[in-house]
């Protein structure tokens, strides 16, 4: 198995605040990795580094074996190979749902409009939003918007999908429909890294769970082990707090 995404010793600080102090993480093809950790532990920062939205202070990020942290690399070309979904949906409000989805395939990847349109409609069909294709985002519910955002990221056939707490801005009832889309993507062999606070979901979908703490991946392994029987005291502590909050 070859790693799609390989993070090696990544260091990132903001001023005096060292957020990542040498994170190692490797994600194989068709694998789903869940990043868990307290608020401010650097999950978003790690995903931003992986998608080159931040410049790392040290270490490497390899995408399909290519060092994308090399300043010689064209960052736009790298981002084209990754799909990213943000916590806030960030759909473009002045475009219809369909235009949001076909934008990158046509403008960035040079596909024909009719071709991209057919695929977009098929994708929207799959998430049950085909009838909203002509609608503007502000007339969709949060869950619907987030599903469209996932489809928008999928429409460019990315090598990997980075999801940053995509359900944390949503109603509990809407969480299910969004997670269903992710689960489908995982079942079809998408490579996914997701930061999440949904431990139950991580348990169901992830192949690997990584616990990020004090700037390093403190513990990682299959969900049953990390979430069920953690080795590290700090992981246990984190999980017990989550259980207290009724989220596992």
């Amino acid at each position, binding site marked *: 198995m070859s790693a799609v995404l390989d993070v090696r010793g990544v260091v990132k600080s903001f001023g005096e605040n060292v957020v990542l102090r040498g994170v190692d*993480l*490797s994600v*194989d093809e068709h694998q789903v990795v869940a990043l868990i950790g307290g608020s*401010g532990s650097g999950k*978003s920062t790690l995903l931003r580094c992986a998608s080159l939205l931040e410049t790392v202070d040290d270490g490497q990020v390899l995408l399909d074996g290519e060092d994308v942290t090399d300043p010689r690399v064209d960052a736009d070309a790298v981002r084209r190979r990754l799909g990213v979904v943000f916590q806030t949906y960030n759909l473009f409000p002045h475009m219809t749902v369909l235009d949001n989805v076909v934008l990158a395939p046509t403008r960035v990847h040079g596909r024909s409009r009719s071709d991209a349109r057919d695929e977009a409609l098929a994708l929207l069909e799959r998430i049950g939003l085909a009838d909203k294709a002509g609608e503007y985002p502000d007339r969709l519910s949060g869950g619907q918007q987030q599903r469209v955002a996932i489809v928008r990221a999928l429409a460019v056939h990315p090598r990997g999908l980075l999801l940053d707490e995509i359900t944390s801005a949503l109603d509990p009832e809407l969480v299910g429909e969004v997670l269903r889309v992710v689960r489908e993507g995982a079942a079809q062999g998408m490579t996914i890294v997701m930061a999440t606070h949904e431990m139950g979901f991580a348990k169901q979908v992830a192949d690997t769970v*990584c616990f990020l703490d004090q700037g*390093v991946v403190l513990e990682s392994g299959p969900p049953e082990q990390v979430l069920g029987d953690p080795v590290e005291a700090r992981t246990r502590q984190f999980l017990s707090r989550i259980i207290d909050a009724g989220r596992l």
Partner: protein
Amino acid sequence: MALRRRRRAGPQLTASLTGGAPGLPAPSQLELDRRAFRTRRSRRSTGVALLSTLVFAVVAYLVVTRSPGWPRVQTTFFSLSAARDAFPDILRGLWLNVQVLVIGGLLVLVLGLGIAVLRTLRGPAFAPLRLLATGYVDLFRGMPLIITLYLVGFGLPALRLQGVPNSPFVLGTLAIVLTYSAYVAEVFRAGIESVHPSQRAAARSLGLTHRQTTRIVVLPQAVRNVTPALLNDFVALQKDVGLISVLGAVDAVRAAQIQVGQTFNFTPYVVAGLLFVLLAVPSARIADGVAARARRRQQTGSVL
């Protein structure tokens, strides 16, 4: 499964010399190479930019100095001795411009903000005020500044009302404030309207009154949004203060004009023009800096 857990080996140095945060090991060779490459690349592009600027300057210089009329132009517009003679008077005049700029600029801000708030008032009770404000903006934004200057500068004193000053300095400042406050009011209004309605809703739901919401929540965000535009207007104001010379105030432009009238050499105009440029450069750079900072602020934040 290729997941590893590995702490980075090596001595835990405190803050490295290359500007790392405390508690981190020194940067790896790889990172040092990357930094070196970035430095080299930025040096190279600076070099290219400098070189192309230089080439352009040399070509422009050659074209101008080889033109047939250059010797004449040089003596009438770029005479060093004329510049030296005119400089002290022009500088004294410029001080007047700076005074108009500072006093006028402050008045413009206050008046502009007031008019903008009036224009955003809702409800029938405020209709007359709103109408007045709209009329004011329409009138003074549409009227060419030079005509406002003439009307205020020569029309007001002609009324011979008690207490109306007839100093061209005061009247000129007044005319400039009238015109610019109309512009700036529109900038402020755009800023107020750019604040998302949900912000107002959030503030009102906390129990803040309309007035408190405007003052504490909406206006600060509005001002922040329009600061770059305001600074741009400030740069425009900096050169328009030179127009008070048409009323006879002895500012930098007028001082240059007097010199030109005596010597029939146009160099004093060039000197005055360059002084205005020098005055504008710092504000233009500040405007750039503020705009860049606003951009950075919008980009950061921990939401991915």
